[in-house]
């Protein structure tokens, strides 16, 4: 049985894979960051196809910002204007290819041969999902959510502390 959902899954899945592949196949920094953005947006659309509307829109929104920031950091550190230079930035290629292919085959095998049980057909509507997710966050998973918040705070402090210039503090 081929449904519209399956066709959309395959189309956007292939788009995600293609963009993901482009990330490591281009020599321009901005191009690879924006390819990653394309891959992430395709993943967000996959979420939308799988009827997780809130998560899909959230993914598309967050990744737009994050990958643009990645593009500017790539520019800052790579000194590679416009991908005009053609340099190779990879090592241990064979090992990586073997690892990538092996892991893909392993996971695919696990997915194919596992017994998944009954497949659900009905999901709550988008509005109902928002409500239920809110209930989940604020009731049962509140502790986890707060931990995530505190982790973000820790991450902010840690990243500022790491990125601070050493020279200035030594001068004083």
């Amino acid at each position, binding site marked *: 049985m081929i*449904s519209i959902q*399956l066709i959309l*899954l395959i189309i956007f899945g*292939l788009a*995600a894979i293609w963009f*993901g592949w482009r*990330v*490591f196949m281009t020599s321009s*920094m901005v191009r*690879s*960051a924006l390819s990653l953005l394309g*891959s*992430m947006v395709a*993943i967000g659309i*996959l*979420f939308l196809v*799988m*009827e*997780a509307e809130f*998560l899909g829109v*959230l*993914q598309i929104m*967050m990744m737009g910002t*994050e990958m643009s*920031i*990645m593009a500017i*950091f*790539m520019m800052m*550190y*790579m000194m590679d204007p416009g991908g005009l230079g053609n340099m190779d*930035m*990879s090592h*241990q290629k064979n090992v*990586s*290819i073997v*690892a*990538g292919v092996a*892991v*893909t085959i392993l*996971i695919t095998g696990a*997915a*194919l041969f596992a017994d*998944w049980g009954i*497949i*659900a057909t*009905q*999901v709550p509507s988008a509005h109902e*999902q928002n409500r*239920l997710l809110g209930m*989940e*966050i604020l009731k049962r*998973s509140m502790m986890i*959510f707060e931990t*995530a918040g505190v*982790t973000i705070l820790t*991450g902010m402090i*840690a*990243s*500022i502390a790491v*990125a601070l210039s050493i020279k200035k503090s030594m001068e004083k």
Partner: protein
Amino acid sequence: MELLITALIIAAVLFGIGLYGALSQTNLVMIMMGIELMLGAAMINLVAFWRYLHPEAFSLQMFVLVAMTVMALEGAVGFAIATQRFRTSGTVEMEESAELKG
């Protein structure tokens, strides 16, 4: 069934590409891109399990939110480390950072 398996195979291929990137690239920011791809694949898996196995369990969606947090944090801390490497050694090539090698 084929919907779930399609989603899982897409995630597996993305994970493989991400792993290849994270292992083969020499640039810190490119390695981070590989890790982001792997996390994205994990998120596809989580959403697929939610949609096709347990649509009533919203802790799965919660898990995706936590994965997104991890992604953002990985970005922030990774860029901080990259900035510091760039300040001290003028490059973010990981081939040239062997100070911890005994």
